[in-house]
């Protein structure tokens, strides 16, 4: 334990160093307080956001939008990805759409979504779903293709139905790769949520950030960035822990733990 703590402290040192440099530059009047507010000012702002409860409200709204889009995309992406592996028609239809859609900047379609669905949460969630869909689908498809054929043949020999093969063999075997897709899509959902909130308003962390920048409230901008970075780090680490837990049975987790 003691050695672990020392290692931890060593990892923390550069971050403390960065904060010290930030504070020193801010105090030295090389820059103005507008361009670089001091660490203390920003920390005070973050603290007051926490104490007044505004932060909880913003985080809640942003996470609701991001996770709603992310989860719809996961259900849709896994369904399409697995179907592509067993139904040639689905593969024929989605393969070119995904190969074209995957590398393109989906966020450029936001004004079209706004035109169709208006300025509410539906538009934001639809945009986030669309942005996340491709990474999850491609990974689910690749995962399903990688399933060892012998497992499927054995199940067929034992009389499993197509449906059983899908839910009991292909889905669990593709889970590591599906989770990889989800791990790629999760940051995408956060980035898209922030951009939709900055463009369309409607509160949340992105809305608050743009508002602070419109009012030239630079401590507010810095505090919002710190809050967003913290929220992002927490969400992504929870996903990482979830992967470990869901894959307890898988060799990936077992070798890593040793």
């Amino acid at each position, binding site marked *: 334990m003691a050695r672990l703590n020392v290692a931890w402290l060593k990892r923390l*040192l550069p971050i403390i160093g960065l904060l010290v440099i930030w504070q020193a530059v801010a105090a030295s009047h090389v820059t103005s307080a507008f361009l670089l507010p001091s660490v203390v000012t920003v920390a005070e702002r973050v603290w007051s956001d926490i104490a007044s409860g505004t932060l909880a409200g913003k985080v809640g709204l942003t996470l609701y939008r991001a996770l709603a889009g992310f989860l719809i995309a996961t259900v849709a992406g896994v369904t399409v990805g697995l179907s592509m592996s067993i139904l040639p028609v689905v593969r024929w239809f989605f393969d070119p759409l995904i190969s074209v859609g995957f590398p393109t900047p989906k966020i450029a379609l936001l004004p079209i979504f706004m035109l169709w669905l208006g300025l509410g949460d539906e538009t934001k969630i639809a945009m986030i779903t669309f942005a996340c869909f491709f990474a999850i689908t491609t990974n689910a498809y690749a995962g399903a293709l990688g399933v060892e054929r012998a497992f499927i043949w054995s199940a067929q020999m034992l009389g499993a139905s197509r449906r059983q093969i899908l839910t009991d063999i292909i889905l669990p075997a593709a889970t590591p790769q599906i989770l990889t897709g989800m791990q790629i899509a999760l940051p995408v959902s956060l980035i898209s949520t922030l951009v939709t909130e900055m463009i369309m308003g409607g509160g949340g962390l992105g809305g608050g950030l743009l508002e602070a920048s419109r009012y030239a409230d630079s401590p507010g901008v810095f505090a919002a*960035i710190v809050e967003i970075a913290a929220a992002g780090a927490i969400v992504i680490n929870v996903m990482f822990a979830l992967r470990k837990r869901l894959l307890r049975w898988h060799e990936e987790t077992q070798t890593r733990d040793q």
Partner: protein
Amino acid sequence: MRPLTLEKHPVLGGIVRYSPLLLLAAAWEASSRLGLVNEYALPPLSTVLVAWFQFLKDPSFYYHAGMSLMRAATGLSLAIVLGVTLGISMASFRWVEATFGPIVQMFYPMPKSALIPLTILWFGLGHLSKIFLIFLGCLLPMTLSSFNGARGTDKVLLWSASSLGASRWNRIRDVVFPASLPSIMAGMRTALALAFVLFVSSELIIANEGLGYLIRMTGDGGQYPAMFAVVLTVVSMGFLADRLLIAITHRVLRWRA
């Protein structure tokens, strides 16, 4: 057997493969022409293409496209140079890893679009804010992919190089760098996609030029066919840039079996 031979044909095979896209395009045109959807909400594809051809005759369109591409290319190139240098140094020198490792780790999960207002605060509405944003956003994936690639260098190769008298610098240049290239190229693909997302987002949010600005302006002005045409332009540019990078990657990594 006939579909099989069709699929192997260089032109017809492509048409068969991409026929769902053609079907969607036809459905788009038909639903709008037949009045199934509002013509404002979804202008017919033919109208959008007409708007696009008009753009091709319009010098200001090239100006906006050039601005966006210049910003993305500058920010991305800077991020590649610095990210590869930093990543390989982190893998080669312990103190560099001890200094920058925790910082990279801390900022990596951060949603990069949160930096848009900060870069505007620092550099205003012009090029510099966008270039800096794209540079910062792409720097982390480039650093991490180079670090991971360099760290995975086969130790036996390094030992052999040392025993043949290679200096530290020679080992990095001739062994570590080529060994990390596959990982670097994979990181570049992530960074390229991110560069597109960041230039479009930042120009949509606030800018005075660029394709994102053009989308916003045509949309706000109710010129929906033009808006669809710019969106299609951005989407195809993203697709073509990705294809180009894949081609470059194949060429760069030709020496691998």
